């Protein structure tokens, strides 16, 4: 898996994307820094994965890219043109190119409508008036693309008659009805049963190859990003901390947070290599820590990390990490192994335990 070619221009591009949500309250000046300074490019026939824990801003990015809410700062470019929508008509033009799939197929399909109605509506909105045989052919083709065959078996079903995986396929078919160039998939498999998740990922991959779609795949599961995506971006507290091709990001993570993330995932083959004693949580985004947002949890942080925001620094071919440890300057922190730094198990105070046990008798 090589990184996208530079000569092929990105389909959808975000430059210095920023989103701040105002905090409610009397004369409140506070904002939640949900997304800050995110740059992202989606290329034809490539999948970019956005990995991060809940609250790291990854879904906000999807919603910004779908223009479901306005940006606070930065630009969204579609084929190099500024695509910020100002009215309904422009939005309509935009969604024809950029479609979104949501996490919950139980909530994103209207329970009172049949599959036929939902797909027909999407076709009519995006492709104009289709009638009769033409419409039937288009419907059949859509269901065939998402591997719901034979189409006749599914076309007149209501969402409650379908399984979770089938519902997500219908949601994908609805997005494909617009014949989009970009698909924004916000955790498309996390609500599905474990046994059918791979089926959906394989379907999306097949669509990427056949229709040359540019896909943004949002997930909290870094292993599925490795399986499915060409490029992986890791987010922490509203900022991108690492970026590179999926294989090297997961096999040789550079940023301490990515290392922690990879080392925390369960791996039955290697019970010893565990980041055990990791403590702390993601910071408040209302008042994010100065400098690197990971610094309160980072075992290697020094004064630079606590004062200056690290830019994405090149750490190898096509790879970048936002960590001062890779900067070419005197006062940089020295990075060690996360395994050593987090190697200790959390300890429980023995005297405390004795009290608890004693009380009980």
């Amino acid at each position, binding site marked *: 898996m090589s990184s996208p070619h530079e000569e092929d221009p990105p389909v959808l591009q975000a430059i210095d994307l920023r989103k701040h949500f105002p905090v409610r309250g009397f004369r409140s000046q506070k904002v939640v820094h949900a997304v800050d300074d995110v740059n992202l490019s989606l290329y034809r026939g490539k999948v970019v994965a956005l990995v991060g824990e809940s609250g790291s801003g990854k879904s906000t990015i999807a919603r910004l890219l779908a223009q479901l809410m306005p940006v606070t700062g930065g630009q969204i470019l579609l084929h190099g043109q500024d695509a910020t929508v100002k009215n309904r008509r422009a939005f309509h033009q935009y969604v024809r190119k950029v479609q979104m799939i949501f996490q919950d197929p139980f909530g994103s399909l209207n329970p009172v409508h049949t599959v036929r109605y939902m797909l027909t509506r999407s076709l009519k909105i995006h492709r104009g008036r289709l009638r009769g045989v033409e419409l039937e052919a288009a419907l059949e083709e859509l269901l065939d693309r998402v591997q719901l065959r034979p189409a006749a078996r599914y076309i007149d079903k209501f969402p409650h008659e379908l*399984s979770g995986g089938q519902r997500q396929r219908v949601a994908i078919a609805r997005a494909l009805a617009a014949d989009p160039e970009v698909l924004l998939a916000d955790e498309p498999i996390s609500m599905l049963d474990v046994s059918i998740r791979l089926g959906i990922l394989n379907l999306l991959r097949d669509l990427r190859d056949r229709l040359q779609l540019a896909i943004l795949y949002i997930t909290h599961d*870094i292993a599925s990003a490795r399986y499915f995506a060409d490029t992986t971006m890791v987010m922490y507290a509203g900022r991108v901390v690492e970026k590179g091709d999926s294989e090297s990001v997961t096999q040789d993570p550079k940023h301490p947070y990515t290392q922690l993330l990879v080392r925390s995932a369960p791996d039955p083959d290697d019970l010893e290599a565990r980041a055990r004693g990791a403590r702390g949580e993601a910071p408040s985004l209302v008042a994010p820590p100065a400098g690197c947002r990971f610094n309160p949890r980072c075992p290697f942080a020094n004064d630079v990390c606590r004062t200056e925001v690290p830019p994405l620094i090149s750490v190898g071919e096509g790879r970048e990490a936002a960590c001062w440890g890779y900067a070419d300057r005197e006062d940089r922190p020295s990075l060690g192994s996360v395994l050593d730094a987090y190697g200790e198990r959390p300890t429980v105070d023995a005297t405390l335990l004795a009290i*608890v046990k004693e009380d009980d008798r």
Partner: protein
Amino acid sequence: MSAVTTQRAFRANAAATDPVLEIKNLSVDYGYDEDPTHVLRQVSLTLNRGEVLGLAGESGCGKSTLAYAATRLLPPPGLITGGEVVFTDRDGQQTDILTLNDQELRATRWQDLAIVFQGAMNSLNPVYRIGRQIADGIAAHLPGVTKKEALERAAGMLELVGISADRLRDYPHQLSGGMRQRVMIAMALALDPQVLIMDEPTTALDVVMQRQIVEQIAELRDRLGFSVIFITHDVSLLIEIADRIAIMYAGEIVEDASAQDMYRRPRHPYSDALLHSFPPLRGPRRELTGIPGSPPDMSNLPTGCPYRTRCAHVFDACAAITPELVAPAVEGDDPRRSVACLRHDPATVAAAGFEPQPVPVELQVR
């Protein structure tokens, strides 16, 4: 061999003969009408003292129902139609939880059996401070304890799960998801129970927090010596923390084996497929398929083996005979493990007049 593995092996052996909770032929129906759905059919499962037993399967396979039925927490229209759940106290006294009256049941809960529910966000009362919520449970079960003592004990429990005691006066909304989950664990452990049932305790958390919680449970278990039933759909997590794993499919246990056996040597086609449903984070990248089809409709199960419609190793007998748990037909296997697959049960197949089929090669890895 590493310290961890030795310790695990030791625990597995020591625990083998000392059951703390025995579920025998438990059956549960949903619906009171003429045609109820049989969501659990004659499930038997034994939890040994000090053991972590993992219960895995897809959603709707009955793993939560099993836990709730065993603790009599099943909400209507769930109905326990048969079986027994025998709890053995530390002094060897046995009680059948299904025959207790309300008062005895109240006394048993928290003290002997505690549950950590799925979704910590919704399990805590938002209008009470967390200290009071923990103290309430303590006061209800130990009548001699004063309010002050109960609160002190609650503070101790919070420290035990790694939350500083000054958070005692916080409301649930002031805590993060991971901390709320830990408060739930603290609450469950407040009365030093012997069995802790955890229903997807880490599903809503991200992996770093999940790792912290799981490590904490392992640590506390080693020190306090309770047994755990850990329910999840994440098999790879189970292999790490459980001593023994039972895989459920369509309301039945299809395989029961030690964690390492399950991971390295799965014997049931479903266990094997489930283990290969997760893309690996390490090792070679390869094409994975998941499991074809979808989980069966419990009100309309196929005859014979419920997994046969999705199984790659199906043969003619599968439609006629419902497989029972038997020892696997692979030489050198741990005699304590069991599997419900006709490929491992040639005697039954032959007795019913079918041609027995050999165990597929991929299911007899040594």
